[in-house]
Each structure stands twice: as structure tokens, then as C-alpha cells.
């Protein structure tokens, strides 16, 4: 187990060093949440077309936009994996005796850390728009944990797709195809209650729903979780473990 953690930490360390050297991606990824919150959120706050109880719509959607920002960023993580394949970096990693699950987990943890930085950017935008944020330690830790696990889930999902499609062109197409359905089939910008039954059934199988639910319960004043933290985190961790196992199985196929 210690050796496994050591190998994972080695991969995470390398990934984080690369991220620190090139923070431009983080800034460019901040543009979308700014637009969603500042434009879409502000406008829909005035329309009052979506029932959000006592919450302002902007407050209601802020956790959803944070989750969306995590999803959109992590789902394209696979592009970097395909790039590493094309450069031969994957081959080099795979001939080491390091466990495949450790290599994949190390990358997921790096994506989780990147998600935390991204969450900080979304928080800055939310503060600027006077979103009612909870600043108590426990909710903050809950948000951080949800962001971390959510990033791990979607980056590993992305890695699985990369292992299957293997080319950047195909990956871009599939990435685009997946992000919007995942986003709209979730409770990110409207409550589950107002969804038609078929969409609510799909949303129940969408890990983004549980990420948003955990964030909504912890991030904003007056927000509450529909499923409860135990269920949301339990399902997210289960999904992550399943994806991790699948990714560890498929990752060696990138070198073929």
C-alpha cells in the first residue's frame, strides 16, 4: 500500500509541477463560469422562472456552475493523456514496475488539486456577484472534498474515454458530445423537482447530480442537500473507484 501511494505521489508531483508552470489554462477555464454567473445567472434571477424556494437564483446556481466548471475542465483531461501517448511518455511510464492503478490515481489526484484551484477562482467570481457564501470551516471542507472527488471522477472518466478513442480528433468530438448532456441532465441550474420523470431518472445516474447536491448543501447560505452528504459522497466515491478500476485496466492499451 505504501509503495502504491509513493508511486501515485510521484505522478501527482510531476503533474502539479507542470500545472504550476502553466497556469494560463486555469485562467481561460475561469471565463465560462464568469459568463454563466454574470450573464445567465443575473438575467434568470430577474425572470424568476425557476422555482428555487427562498434562495436567489444566482445563489442557487452558483454551486451548479462550480460543478460545471469542474466537469468541463476535467472532462478534457484525456486530451493531455493522448498527447502523452503521442509523445511516448505513456510508454515510458508503462514499462516501469509501478502499478497501473497508481499511475491513474496519481493523475486523478493532480486533477483534484487543479479542481481546488479552479474552485477558488469560481469563489472569487461568486464573491464579486454577492453570492451568499458560507464561510464556516465544515462547509468549506465539504466543498473542498466534493470538488476534489468530483474532479477525480470526471478526469478519470476522461482518461477512460481517451484509452478507448486514442486520437485527439475523436476525443474532442466525444468530449463535446458528453459535456452538455451531463450538465443538463443534472440539478446544476434547475431543481430535480421540475424535471420530467425521464430526465430525473437519468439525473439519478449522473455523478454530476451528486456533486452539485453536496456543493449546494455546503456552499451557500440557505442551501440544502436533497440526498444528504453521506449518500452524495458515498455514490461519488463508488463511481470513482469503479472508474479507477476501469481506467487501470484500459490505460496499458494506450501503448499498443
Amino acid at each position, binding site marked *: 500500500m505504501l509503495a502504491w501511494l509513493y508511486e501515485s505521489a510521484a505522478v501527482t508531483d510531476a503533474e502539479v*509541477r507542470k500545472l504550476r508552470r502553466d497556469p494560463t489554462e486555469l485562467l481561460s477555464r475561469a471565463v465560462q463560469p464568469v459568463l454563466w454567473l454574470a450573464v445567465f445567472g443575473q438575467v434568470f434571477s430577474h425572470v424568476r422562472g425557476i422555482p428555487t424556494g427562498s434562495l436567489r437564483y444566482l445563489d442557487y446556481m452558483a454551486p451548479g456552475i462550480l460543478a460545471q466548471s469542474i466537469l468541463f475542465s476535467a472532462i478534457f483531461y484525456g486530451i493531455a493523456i493522448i498527447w502523452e501517448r503521442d509523445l511516448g511518455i505513456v510508454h515510458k511510464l508503462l514499462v*516501469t514496475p509501478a502499478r497501473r492503478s497508481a499511475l491513474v490515481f496519481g493523475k486523478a489526484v493532480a486533477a483534484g488539486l487543479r479542481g481546488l484551484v479552479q474552485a477558488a477562482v469560481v469563489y472569487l467570481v461568486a464573491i464579486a456577484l454577492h453570492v451568499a457564501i458560507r464561510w464556516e470551516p465544515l462547509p468549506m471542507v465539504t466543498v473542498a472534498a466534493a470538488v476534489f472527488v468530483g474532479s477525480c471522477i470526471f478526469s478519470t472518466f476522461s482518461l477512460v474515454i481517451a484509452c478507448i478513442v486514442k486520437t485527439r480528433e475523436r476525443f474532442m468530438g466525444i468530449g463535446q458530445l458528453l459535456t452538455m448532456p451531463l450538465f443538463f441532465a443534472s440539478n446544476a441550474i434547475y431543481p430535480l423537482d421540475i424535471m420530467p420523470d425521464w430526465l430525473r431518472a437519468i439525473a439519478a445516474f449522473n455523478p454530476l447530480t451528486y456533486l452539485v447536491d453536496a456543493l449546494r448543501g455546503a456552499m451557500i447560505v440557505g442551501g440544502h442537500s436533497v440526498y444528504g452528504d453521506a449518500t452524495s459522497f458515498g455514490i461519488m466515491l463508488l463511481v470513482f473507484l469503479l472508474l479507477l478500476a476501469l481506467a487501470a485496466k484500459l490505460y496499458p492499451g494506450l501503448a499498443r
Partner: protein
Amino acid sequence: MAATNNSIAIATVDLSKRFNHVTALDRLTLSVARGQIFGLLGPNGAGKSTTIKILTTLLEASSGRATVAGFDVAAEPIEVRRRIGYVPQLLSADGALTATENLTLSARLYGLHGARLKTRVHEALAFAGLDTVAHKLVRTFSGGMIRRLEVAQATLHTPEILFLDEPTIGLDPVARRTVWERLQQLRHSQGMTILITTHDMEEADVLCDELAILHQGRLAVIGQPDALKAQVGPQADLADVFAHFSGAVIEQEGYYRGIRQSRGTIQRLG
């Protein structure tokens, strides 16, 4: 399974690989003695890279058997990986990391830690002649520097066997010779067995103790360079040997992905 014959580093018996209906490797049987520099030659698509990928556990054979350092590549891949180093044809050093960071990552994945890790990283930097640029990003290096770094990375854990896939493709003559010197140094100082694939006849002549020429996935011939030249004719060089045994119309050989890979590597090496 421990090796029964300690003098053999690599052995394959009827090793085959099929991709759908294409046979990339067809019943390859060969053995490489410990301490040898062994060359695999052949046109693009001859099965060189497939062979090296099977031997380094990156690819599973369709049939047949291969042992590396005495361990079966299919049944005991982890034991094989502990004992080998691999330099792919593609440039595998990460340009977004420094030389030290690239080496440290590899060292950690090979299980080195603490003082031993630091010592080996310093030794590797010295071996590669990169001490003065240890903290510079690899994307600023020349092609020769990157290749030397990759050889150093692949040998951090002092493997018994080093595999190199087209190690000097795209390098200028000076950089090429520097890589050759490092390989010979590894063989002499550590008794390392080295298997390289190459298109370069001069490289094969200078470096290799023994050569195997593959053609269309099959072993065309195996032997020492001088013996092979003698088989072809009194004035023959390795290019003649290559043409003679590989069926020769080299310019008509190859396949899209292999050529794209080679060109990509050459382009990245500048």
C-alpha cells in the same frame, strides 16, 4: 520462474503477433546473450517495434513465448519490468519538466527513494552530461541532449537489459556518436545487455555484436555483422546485407503510422 540458462538475457520461441488479419510478427525465434549489444534491423513494418513492445511487456503476443532476464513476459511482467529499461522511438522525456524532475519521476516509479534516489539522479545527470542544465526545462534541450537524458532515465535503476527503439533517429552525426558512446559505456561498465532496433547501417556496424534482420514479420537472418557480410560477398557492407536479406525494395515498405511516428520524432528533434 527463474532462468535456467544464465547466459541468455532474451529468448523468444515462435513468437507471433497478429492485428486482426495482419501478421506483424511471425514465429520469431531468437536468443540474445548477456552483455551483448544486439541489433534488430528491418524496413518499416518488419516487426521490430512489435517485437520490442512484446519484450518490454507493452504488448501481448498472440502466440509463442518470450523470456527476458529469465522471466516470462506474459506470466511475470512485473519481474521483467524491474529488470529492464526502455527508450521508445518517440521522445518520452517530458518537455514541461526539468531534467532533474524527469529523472526523479522515473526513479520514484522504479521504487528508488531517499539518499539512493538523490545519488542515482546525480549520477544519471553526470552520465548524460547534463549537470549544468539539470534545472532547465527539457523542451529547451537539443535532440541529442533529450536522447541522452532518456537513456539516463531508462538506466537509473541499473537494469540488466536496455531496450532502445531507433535511438538515434533524427539526430545529427555528433549527437548520434555521443549516444553510441553512452551505450558502449553502459555495456562496459555495467555489463548491460542492450537490444536496439535501427535503420542505420553505420549504427548497427559500430554498435552491434550480433544482428537479426526481420522482413515482413519473419526472421530473415541472424549472425555477427562480419559473418553476415561474408555471406553476401567479399566487398559487401551491411547495407548490402540488409538489401539482400530484407527482400530489398525498402522504399516501397512501411506503413502510415510508423512513418508518421518517425517523422514526428525527427521533427521534434529539430
